[in-house]
């Protein structure tokens, strides 16, 4: 970058090298919805499997109901994980920014207090 480069020149240069990602790659909203759907379907199928297994004395049908129930629980767990992953990301990003700021502020205050402290021990200010 040269010193005579204007903001507009820099803007054009940065856009030239900007890699435009495939819009299909950023499907956070889709994953969020898929997670919620999987979670709901898992619960519904799990409850259905319970009733199927209890409303028959045929062991083959009960076996199918068991398989369905286990698959539903697995689907629900995966759905919950997806939902949490995509719903919490945004929140945690801001939370981390806030934490960083608070730590920085605390460090500044401690450093300032340290600098104000008289090493001869004649100051009355509490440390």
């Amino acid at each position, binding site marked *: 970058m040269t010193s005579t480069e204007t903001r*507009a020149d820099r803007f*054009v240069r940065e856009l030239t090298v900007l890699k435009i990602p495939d819009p299909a790659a950023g499907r956070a909203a889709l994953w969020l919805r898929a997670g919620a759907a999987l979670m709901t379907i898992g619960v519904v199928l799990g409850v259905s499997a319970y009733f199927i297994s209890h409303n028959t004395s045929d062991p083959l049908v009960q076996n199918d109901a068991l398989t369905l129930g286990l698959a539903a629980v697995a689907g629900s767990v995966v759905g919950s994980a997806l939902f949490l992953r995509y719903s919490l990301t945004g929140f945690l990003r801001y939370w981390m920014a806030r934490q960083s700021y608070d730590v920085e502020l605390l460090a500044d205050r401690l450093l300032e207090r340290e600098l104000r402290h008289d090493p001869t021990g004649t100051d009355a200010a509490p440390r």
Partner: protein
Amino acid sequence: MSALLELRGIRAAHERITVLHGVDLDVAAGQVVALLGPNGAGKTTTLRVAAGVHPVESGQLVLGGRDMTGADPRDLARAGVCLIPEGRGVFPNLSVRDNLLMMTFTGRGREEIEEIAFARFPVLARRAGQAAGTLSGGEQQMLALARGLATDPAVLLLDELSMGLAPLVVGRLYEQVGEIARQGVAVLVVEQFAAAVLDICDHAAVLVRGRVERQGHPDGGLRAELSALYLGSST
């Protein structure tokens, strides 16, 4: 100078209702372009398309000579496209200082951001510890502008800066917008109240029902036609 922001035949919709029917608009570096029009004309949608946050049905969003249609708005924001939305877009529960701190995601330090903000809007320095929600409307708009400036924008998109503010305050804010443009920033302003922005803009376009009905230098001719366009009759 060639345009930094170009909208080419933009068609865009809300749900399945098309609200922009082929909008063409150019904004060059150092230029203030006002996009005027009555309520519901599609001004805010045009601005959101320019920021990359609203998808287009057809047409091109060209930035710095490159077709950026469909680009991630976060990439555009990092490159220097800054949208200040209607309603100021500040965090009301955070202090002025914390609102500015949020802009450190751009890579600039807290001190540098505060220096830029407080130099342009000294009143914010006096309100640094105050919650943004307790500021006056004008001060909140100053804070929104300061947050925008902290991103070192090349293209600044302003939506209804005058909303809910006294004319005197609006005049002062637009003076600042003019100053920002003179530093080489391309500014596109959406405004429902034409009088507020015509004094400082270099070019004005009037949007009616999703179409640019008239555009040009904001001279007497355009001003005279504005009321007729707003009322939906021809002169």
